[in-house]
């Protein structure tokens, strides 16, 4: 099985507070292709920081993040932008779609940045929106979609460009039960069909119950790392 991400002694210290805050402490983990991982832990345990660091949005104070054999700390900012664009998909808690673009345009956006051929882009965007059950909302802007529908568009956007892995920061936090289950069903199916590695930070028991691996962070350190056969 291919290792997609490997972290070595990852530490992150925020020094701008009155006292230094150790958000991550010596986190060493490996993520295998196709894994559905939930990062859990109480608020302030370092879940979001961990996702930011492995997503190349934030730099670690110590340690390294190796993705697809590349230590991302060695990349210049412009290289890191390109790297993120080609390897990582993001799903955020608050959907974060581009309000002036339609559902199709939002899903195509990353592929557009990757300069994929227009026809392929349109085909893939349509296919992804069909997969998340929004084939009737192709030309609708986010403002006219419900929260659950917007999050499904965000998932379609993250997966459309076929990234190596998708980082999802509490994606079900703002969704009602039905929408959350719906979204999780879609993500689980896509995880299997597209063999995309999914890493969630979450408090949501519904997500945890679906994950094949659950990593518990406490005070920035790995407290538990459990695998499940699901």
């Amino acid at each position, binding site marked *: 099985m291919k290792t997609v991400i490997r972290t070595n002694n990852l530490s992150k210290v925020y020094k701008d507070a009155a006292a230094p805050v150790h958000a991550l402490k010596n986190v060493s983990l490996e993520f295998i292709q196709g894994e559905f991982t939930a990062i859990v832990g109480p608020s302030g345990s370092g879940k979001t920081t961990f996702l*930011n660091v492995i*997503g190349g*949005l*934030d730099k670690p104070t110590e340690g390294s993040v190796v993705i697809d054999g590349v230590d991302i700390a060695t990349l210049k900012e*412009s290289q890191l*932008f390109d790297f*993120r*664009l080609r390897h990582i998909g*993001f799903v*955020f808690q608050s959907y*974060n779609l*581009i*309000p*002036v*673009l339609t559902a199709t345009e939002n899903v195509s*956006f*990353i592929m*557009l*940045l*990757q300069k994929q051929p227009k026809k392929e882009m349109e085909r893939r965007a349509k296919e992804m929106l069909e997969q998340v059950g929004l084939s009737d909302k192709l030309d609708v802007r986010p403002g006219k979609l419900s929260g659950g529908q917007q999050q499904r568009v965000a998932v379609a*956007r993250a997966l459309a460009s076929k990234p190596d892995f998708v980082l999802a920061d509490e994606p079900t936090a703002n969704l009602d039960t039905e929408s959350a289950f719906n979204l999780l069903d879609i993500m689980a199916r896509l995880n299997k069909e597209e063999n995309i590695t999914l890493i969630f930070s979450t408090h949501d028991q519904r997500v945890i119950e679906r994950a094949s691996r659950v990593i518990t962070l406490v005070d920035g350190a790995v407290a538990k790392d459990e695998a499940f056969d699901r």
Partner: protein
Amino acid sequence: MLITLAWRNLWRKKRRTFITVSSVMFATILAILLMSMLSGMKDQMVDSLVRTSTGFLQVQDALYFDEPSMDHSLEYGEEVENAIEMHSGQISFTVPRIQGFCLASKEISSRGVIVTGILPEKEDLMNNLSSNITEGSMFGPDDSFAIVAEDLARQLELNIGDTIVLLGQGFQGMTAAGKYPVGGIIRFFMPEQNNTMVYLPLQEAQWFFVAPDRLTSLIIMTDSEEEVAPLAESLQSHLDDEWYAVKTWEELMPDALLAFEARDAQVKLFAWVLYIVVGFGIFGTIVTMVYERLREFGILLSIGLKRWQLATICLLETLFISFIGVSAGVAAGFPIVYSLFVKPIQLTGELADVMIDMGIEPIMSFSIAPGIFIYQAMSIFFIALIVGIYPVKKVFRLEMVSAARN
């Protein structure tokens, strides 16, 4: 894609965009009106000034400008005629004059005057001189009476039919002396002209100054002020500069030129104050737009948009707002300016009196020179570009994580 995003972003908050575009539009209209009025009035002042004094261009003897005496008058011969003929396409008409300082007297009163020999039909083309006659009539080619300025006539107690005695310096040391019946009284707007001018028919004046076929200046008029400089250069190249000098109105009236330049500087300063006010209006909107969207910027950068792409979107938004505002301003401003150009505002009251005293027709003229519209558009774009630096700078300094958490 960047253009589409920028364009659509503008219409996310239609009311705000509408207000900003409106402020740019009204500022543009105001700036166009202001610049058109000031430019129109300047053209009018230049035109009035040159028509009532030096004309746009003069051919003179090479030494006359520094030592204006009859000995430095010009022989209007073949060389000058040929040069004028060669440029006939650029010249509207010419006005010959012979002019000298003299003493004018009637009985025991005397005054220093300027005696000018003219061809009335040519002067009428230039400044409609005959229309200023308040008593008597303008002389014809065969007449030999004088026309005297109104205030001078009052000072010397001259009436139609009285005799004015003139004494001065003629050509090559000859005495210029003569007595002429007063056949007309003429009124000038400018007091210095109204106190000093005496007109004689050109031939009579040449005889008076003992300078047959000589002129002190040959005035050349063009259709517009823009043609003056190239025509002067070309004319001079066809005349021997040891004998002839071609002078523009700017060279002949350096004080007037300085006054116009000072006025232009004031106008530009005022216009830039206006532009800065517009700039702050746009800046306010842009700052609000940026701060409202910091989180969105963070997200866009997170998902793969490059900083320069995001900066371009922000800059395009600023430029779109400016472009729409400026275009609307020009579109709305042009008909207003054009109607004022066709039908200038007639001035009354004290302002009109001041203008009349200055020898300027009391109307508020407007200019429709393309440069006015282009200059406004370019200036506001320039300001928009400067304002556009702010979001660009913000984007390049943005920390993705903190912005996305915003």
